[in-house]
């Protein structure tokens, strides 16, 4: 691995770290606008994180070492997963380290520990959050893998960088419309579910009847909460990146020239912020579904990705 590869990895890492709070801020701002509130500055999440890092954390006396260790594991596994997803340049230098399965299971590693941490404090809220997360995660995973596989078929590779690179060259959607569109819708629904957005979960509420993710992390405070929140932002960012770069890879750098990279950064930030606005608007247009109605939504995502697969093969015959 050359020095440039290494620099690119570092660059991407800081891009994800630096940009993810902004995405959260943008979505909040858009939602505030839609609800006729003034809303906080889009940079507010940065201040929140800085404040949280400085605050004194409280750890439950019932908790074991799992509870303080989880934020670090969650942070590192989410950031590691983000390094497999190309942002400004494709293919990423770390392309070789893992494919779509590795991405899904790296994210699952974080979820696994977060679910344990939810149970660790002994509070019923944490257990409730973990229990609900278990069912939502179980139902999204097959749809996620199938939809990513459907797009992998067009590219002839299951490595995410290769998918993005090939679609960038082949012009993705233009080439293979029906399967890609279906996979796109499926992946959008999965994004809402995986990142805890309305209509699956509501990140803005602390009501025990509805919360999933917030219930799991209820006992966290101080720097631990900061790491968990940051990781949640990065996970959101990973899914938005997947959506924009798989289905609309235009503008991503495919060579190592400075101008291409510069353009790549600009286009990427533009696309991700744009999609964040869409998510914000989308969140305001729907009410949160009951937990047991979420099944139908995720079932629809699964069927759509299955159809994407069927159409891919049928259109080829």
């Amino acid at each position, binding site marked *: 691995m050359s020095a440039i590869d290494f620099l690119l990895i570092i660059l991407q890492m800081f891009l994800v770290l630096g940009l993810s709070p902004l995405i959260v801020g943008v979505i909040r701002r858009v939602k505030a606008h839609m609800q006729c509130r003034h809303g906080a500055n889009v940079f507010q999440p940065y201040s929140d994180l800085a404040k949280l*890092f*400085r605050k*004194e*954390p*409280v*750890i*439950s*006396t*019932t*908790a*074991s070492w799992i509870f303080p260790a989880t*934020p670090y*594991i969650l*942070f*590192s*596994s989410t*950031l590691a997963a983000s390094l497999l997803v190309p942002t400004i340049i494709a293919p990423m230098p*770390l392309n*070789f*380290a*893992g*494919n779509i*399965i*590795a991405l*899904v299971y790296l994210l*699952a*590693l974080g*979820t696994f520990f977060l*679910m*344990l941490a939810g*149970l*660790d*404090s*002994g*509070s*019923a809220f*944490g*257990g*409730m959050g*973990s*229990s609900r997360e*278990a069912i939502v*995660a*179980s*139902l*999204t*995973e097959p749809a996620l893998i*199938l939809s990513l596989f459907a797009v*992998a078929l067009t590219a002839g*590779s*299951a*490595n995410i960088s290769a998918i993005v690179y090939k679609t960038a060259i082949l012009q993705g959607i233009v080439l293979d419309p029906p399967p890609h569109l279906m996979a796109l819708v499926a992946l959008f629904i999965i994004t809402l579910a995986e990142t805890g957005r309305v209509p699956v979960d509501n990140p803005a509420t602390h009501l025990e009847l509805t919360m999933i993710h917030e219930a799991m992390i209820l*006992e966290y405070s*101080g720097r631990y909460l*900061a*790491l968990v929140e940051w990781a949640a932002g990065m996970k959101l960012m990973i899914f938005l990146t997947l959506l924009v770069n798989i289905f609309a890879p235009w503008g991503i750098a495919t060579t190592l020239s400075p101008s291409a990279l510069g353009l790549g950064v600009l286009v990427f930030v533009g696309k991700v912020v744009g999609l964040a606005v869409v998510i914000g608007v989308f969140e305001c247009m729907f009410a949160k579904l009951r*937990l047991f109605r979420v099944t139908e939504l995720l079932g629809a995502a*699964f069927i759509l990705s*299955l159809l994407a697969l069927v159409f891919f093969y049928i259109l080829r*015959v």
Partner: protein
Amino acid sequence: MTTILFLALLLAYACGMLLPLCFPSRPHIQNVIAHGSASVACSLGIALGLIGLLASEPLVWFWSSSIPLLTFSLRLDSLSAFFVLTISLVGLAVSVFASGYVQEFYGRIPVSLLGFLYNGFLLSMLLVVTADNAFFFLIVWELMSLLSYFLVVSEHEKPDVRFAGLFYLIMTHVGTAFILVTFLMFYQETGSFAFEAFRSADQALPEGLRTLVFWTALIGFGTKAGIVPLHVWLPYAHPAAPSHVSALMSGVMIKTAIYGLLRVYFDFLGGPFPWWWGFVVLLVGTVSALLGVMYALMEHDLKSLLAFHSVENIGIILLGIGTGMVFYAYDMPHLAALGIIAGLYHTINHAVFKALLFMGAGSLLYATHTRNMEEYGGLLRRMPWTGLFFLIGAVSISALPPTNGFVSEWLVFQGLFLSLELPSLFLKLMLPIAAALLALTGALALACFVKAFGISFLALPRSPHARKAQEVPVPMRVGMGILAGLCLVLGLAPAVVVPLLDRVSEPFAGISIAGRMFEMGGWTLAPVSGEFSSLSTPVLAIILVGLTGLGWGLAYVLGGKGKTRFYKTWGCGLNVTARMEYTATGFVQPIKRVFSTIYQPTVKLETEFLEESHYFAKQRHFEFSIEPIFLKYLYHPILKFFSTLADRSRVIQGGNLSLYLAYIFVTLVVLLVVMG
């Protein structure tokens, strides 16, 4: 040299079986000798397995006998050597563990007898995977079944243990019957019981008979492996045995069935077989994996939960092998080899982490004297080592990177994804669906082990047993530690493991793919099809460790040292007690509800109200159960049929000796007339 090694191994097992009997009423000495000998024998077995894997020619031992058709012939080819290695690796760790665990039984169960059965069981498994004669194979197979039956009923004073043992005994003999039929069909065609003759008979078998052999072998070995719907005995028998025996049964014994399937399909039948064989195996694998994990979720007896997970993992192994069979049928040897390697990799991985988890469950049983998860809780603080090892096992079985379970499931996924190269549209669609269902299985397994670890080891103790629990003795921790280490090693070193497995699959697929599995000098696993996909667990592990450091550094830089306050959990104004915690039953309730079609749960809630007002409950009685579908709709009708038949035939059973003599006479006459 290898012969001496093999004889030394036999001697060590013989010592382990017989020497403890010479020290009556000295349980500690019996224990040390039995499990010490087993450890020595397993170490020799590991050496033998490695030699067999690396040897270019199969090693053969041969003793003739005076019984016609029976020869004591043993053959150690790469497939046998792989299973010898797996059995011995797990056997070594379990033997170390057992030397601590068996202390639990001093004075209750004769340790010498337990040691005799334990060593005999290990030896019989070794002989099963090395036997080279069908007659001899059936004898050692039966020996393995019977010895494990006696081990299952070690605590025979409990009625449910006796029931589990009986159920196991019947089911395993149904399986043996089908295996017997399989071998008899070969015998009919070849006139010999030697495996050598079966092997050369591949083209001689007529098509119809080949199909029949496929089915009888699947049912026969499938019963032992615990494929759905033949799995019903497994969740009873495996938990009933002492925990170190459960570890062996779930970890390695059911793998002998995988050995049998590979031996019969690829070695004996060989040649091109129809694609639907592979598809049937895939189907069985998918259904077993999914239903196995679903039933595991509903179990709150830790050992039964683990037993159901064995059904799941056998399913995953069969998914790998089934993919290999499909590719084999279409004459795509590279991908066939990939499928077989994936299946074998998961075989050894499952052996390692399942034995580890069963030993963990045994440690909890040792410390708390209960198997009910709802009575555990908070054990990570009281049993830090057991907890850590169980966590490593749980992470591995949930297939999370960078552990071993992840690598083998990843390989299974690649095999399923590469279906895009198949010519058949039907299979092109079916294999990705199997992959999606495997993803569902994986996610549910993750949920199940969050439950198993979270409810058992975290939060507050839920019973006085858990409050008084203490860490288990050192030998038990060492046994678990060995396998926990192996979970990580097998995950981080596919570069070492895959070439070894390639030696096993090479004779079957007819091609070696070790050279096409790696890129970047062995750091990256990139199966066969060019740039299709790649994975590097060592790099992922380095990144994960590095980024954890980064997270810690960021927290330090942005927040400074800072103090941490410890305070009790907020309980809405009340002190949090164990009764407020989420229970295992509560944890899986959403899953139970979403998949209620499969579970068909029945809930019984009886409330006794206060006399003064029926708004206040005095007492509530809650009962819930899920429908055991297979027992109810498949096994009970069969049982009913046979008991009705038996009832009907009672008419002719007079109980009078002369009547029976008359029957014999009539039969004889009829036979003479018919045959004459």
